[in-house]
């Protein structure tokens, strides 16, 4: 099994699990405790397993422009933006973040489980010259620092004034005197940062471990358990569960990622066709009164007619209720409607909501100082 640069720490302190070919921390104390630390204070995550590619060269901006449904050349340098890789049928190959470091230098961050496939997709569409594609997953570490106290926790490790970094912006700087990229992004719904430390490998992991241990002294280390419950509570999709190559952006409430007047990218022809009519299925959130909805469970309307499927579900530590993202027939239901989820033979009552599941006045990056 593959490991990250921080494995020595996880092995000592965490319950480990296999994820996307990596041995990763599932939890250190409990998922609930780690989850609440991120919502109320600050948690740190080892996300070094995520795929990272440098795409550089004079043709790199034009090349990426033709690959994703989001504008690339129009983005200012320093922008970190969410986008999708689509196939010719406009199905979602992966969702990702592109950090535009300069007009000819991009850092592409993708899901660990899809990294190999994405590399194939990128190289397959690459022009013969003018760009270089380099995988930097094994030569860098990535740590997410998330929660209302994230800035306070990370600031002592870097000379860069984190207060200057707006949401979805990124800067090249250093962290404990090592070259690093910091972006104000994350997968929890909270304010926070993702730090990519360059020049650390499994053979020379000390620099990464030093940063992790310093951060851990001022925050709560979190495993993949909390990472999943946090992203679900925020309503963010997980590729492989909520979105996949058979799902198009409009079915997944990701139409906003597809730039209105942009043309000529992979999947564009199908996007034009799909845009003409409302999607057949849509993404919704469900909150149950009892029971925990899980992937694959059936969703029924108030009169017990099947209307869709749970794509991912969990127990929300904030709501103290079972919550889920689901895919339901369009027009069958809107927020507030009563629905049921069949939980191992028992139809549990609940209602449709628009994620995030938490109250945005009390939780998430929109509260407090960011406004």
């Amino acid at each position: 099994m593959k490991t990250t640069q921080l494995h020595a720490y996880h092995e000592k302190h965490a319950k480990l699990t296999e994820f996307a070919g990596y041995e990763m921390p599932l939890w250190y104390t409990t998922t609930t405790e780690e989850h609440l630390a991120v919502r109320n204070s600050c948690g740190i995550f080892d996300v070094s397993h995520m795929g990272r590619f440098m795409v550089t060269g004079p043709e790199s901006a034009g090349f990426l422009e033709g690959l994703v449904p989001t504008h690339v050349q129009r983005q200012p340098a320093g922008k970190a933006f969410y986008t999708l890789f689509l196939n010719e049928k406009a199905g979602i190959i992966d969702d990702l973040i592109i950090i535009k470091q300069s007009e000819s230098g991009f850092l592409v961050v993708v899901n660990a489980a899809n990294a190999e496939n994405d590399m194939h997709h990128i190289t397959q569409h690459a022009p013969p010259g003018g760009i270089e594609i380099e995988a930097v997953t094994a030569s860098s570490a990535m740590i997410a620092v998330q929660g209302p106290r994230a800035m306070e926790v990370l600031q002592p490790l870097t000379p860069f004034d984190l207060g200057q970094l707006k949401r979805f912006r990124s800067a090249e700087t250093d962290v404990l005197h090592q070259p690093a990229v910091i972006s104000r992004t994350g997968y929890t719904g909270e304010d926070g940062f993702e730090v990519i430390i360059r020049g650390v490998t499994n053979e020379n992991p000390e620099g990464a471990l030093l940063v992790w241990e310093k951060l851990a002294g001022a925050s709560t280390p979190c495993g993949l358990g909390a990472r999943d419950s946090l992203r679900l509570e925020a309503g963010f999709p997980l590729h492989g569960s909520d979105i996949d190559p058979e799902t198009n952006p409009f079915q997944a409430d990701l139409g906003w990622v597809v730039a209105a007047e942009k043309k000529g990218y992979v999947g564009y022809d199908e996007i034009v066709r799909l845009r003409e009519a409302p999607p057949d299925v849509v993404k919704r959130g469900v909150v149950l009164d009892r029971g925990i909805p899980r992937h694959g469970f059936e969703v029924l309307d108030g009169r017990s007619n099947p209307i869709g499927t749970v794509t991912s579900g969990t127990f929300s530590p904030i709501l103290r209720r079972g919550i889920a993202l689901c895919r339901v027939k369009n027009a069958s239901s809107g927020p507030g409607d009563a629905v049921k989820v069949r939980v191992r033979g028992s139809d549990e009552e609940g209602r449709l909501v628009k994620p995030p599941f938490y109250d945005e006045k009390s939780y998430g990056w929109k509260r407090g100082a960011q406004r």
Partner: protein
Amino acid sequence: MDHAGFEIPDDLVYTKEHEWAKEAAPVIRVGITDYAAKTLNDIVYVTLPKLEERVTQFKTMGTVESIKAVSELYSPISGTVTKVNKALDSHPELVNKSPYGEGWLLEIRPDDFTSERKNLLDPKSYAAHIESLQR
């Protein structure tokens, strides 16, 4: 008895699926072991059979759920459910805090505990079973 960080009381019998049974005549009290509770990590939801429901040895009778996973509950004996631990509805974390005490799950009036008991593990065999799983 404490085994590799897991508590295994001497006065109980066990299933390979990590339930415990304790004779409290005329009923048998049932729960999950410290090993099961620690492995599940934080228990947030427990589904138990209803009162007077029939349960069968080694057949599923409910579920214990953590945030991430669902784990089936298997009955250590055959019989009729006489009591369920109501406190778990609002405080499922009791199973983590005290799996052999306040976090008990249910009580069963056994059909024939004397003969079914032979199918269960004594503390020493259960300890050996846990050890084999950790290897």
